[in-house]
């Protein structure tokens, strides 16, 4: 499992705009770089990221080799009710990881 960092407030008032920051450790090998033996290393990147709140998709990204290593994404969301976020990263070689975080809205 790749290490992830997810940063969002634990609680918010209804109507607050909160900022969600996510990062996952991943080499994001571009497929254009030569390795130590001079041959091009195969592409190995995260291609999709989805953030859901209680199974409703709120934010989705398609990533390309132009993403820096350890892809980092910041986005916002208007707090409506308490619940759980899930964060899913998918990529080359069957890479698939899901993390979750909860927020209390009151």
């Amino acid at each position, binding site marked *: 499992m790749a290490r992830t960092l997810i940063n969002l407030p634990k609680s918010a008032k209804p109507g607050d705009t909160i900022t969600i920051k996510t990062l996952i450790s991943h080499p994001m090998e571009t497929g254009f770089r030569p390795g130590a033996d001079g041959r091009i290393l195969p592409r190995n990147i995260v291609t999709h990221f989805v953030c859901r709140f209680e199974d409703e998709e*709120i*934010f989705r990204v*398609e990533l390309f*080799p132009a993403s*820096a290593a350890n892809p980092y*994404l910041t*986005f*916002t969301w208007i707090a409506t009710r308490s619940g759980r976020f899930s964060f899913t990263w998918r990529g080359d070689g069957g890479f698939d990881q899901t993390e979750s975080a909860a927020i209390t809205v009151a």
Partner: protein
Amino acid sequence: MDRRGALAGLAGTVLVIALRPAAAATLPRTETTESAIRRFAGDNPIRPGRVTLDLPPLVENGNTVPLTVSVESAMTPEDHVRRIGVFNERNPQPNVVTVHLRPGAGRAQVSTRIRLADTQRITAIAEMSDGTYWSASADAIVTLAACLEG
């Protein structure tokens, strides 16, 4: 062009001349930027405005360049940003990132970190819920290119 832009452009020219023999120009290019943008926006007209693209004008290390795109939008169900596409001119592939937004997003603002293989212009294009497309561009001068060193 204002004075700052003119100076940045001049500095870019000097650096490009200095760095070009390194091999940046020989990178394979899978698709033109224009065709990638057309794949994103179809035949719709793309107007300048409403989009703000923040990235450092002078990049020391192209392997990780902070990028923030924001779009002027109320983000209501009636009027919101559907997608934001970011495109480059000189990386091996023209696509940088494509973001899908929903009305409940609050602000139409996204930050990430990208790779830049060369001194180049970055373009962000936003698709609004009314089907219009808006864009902004920013130039970045890259002193150490991404993608090249092993």
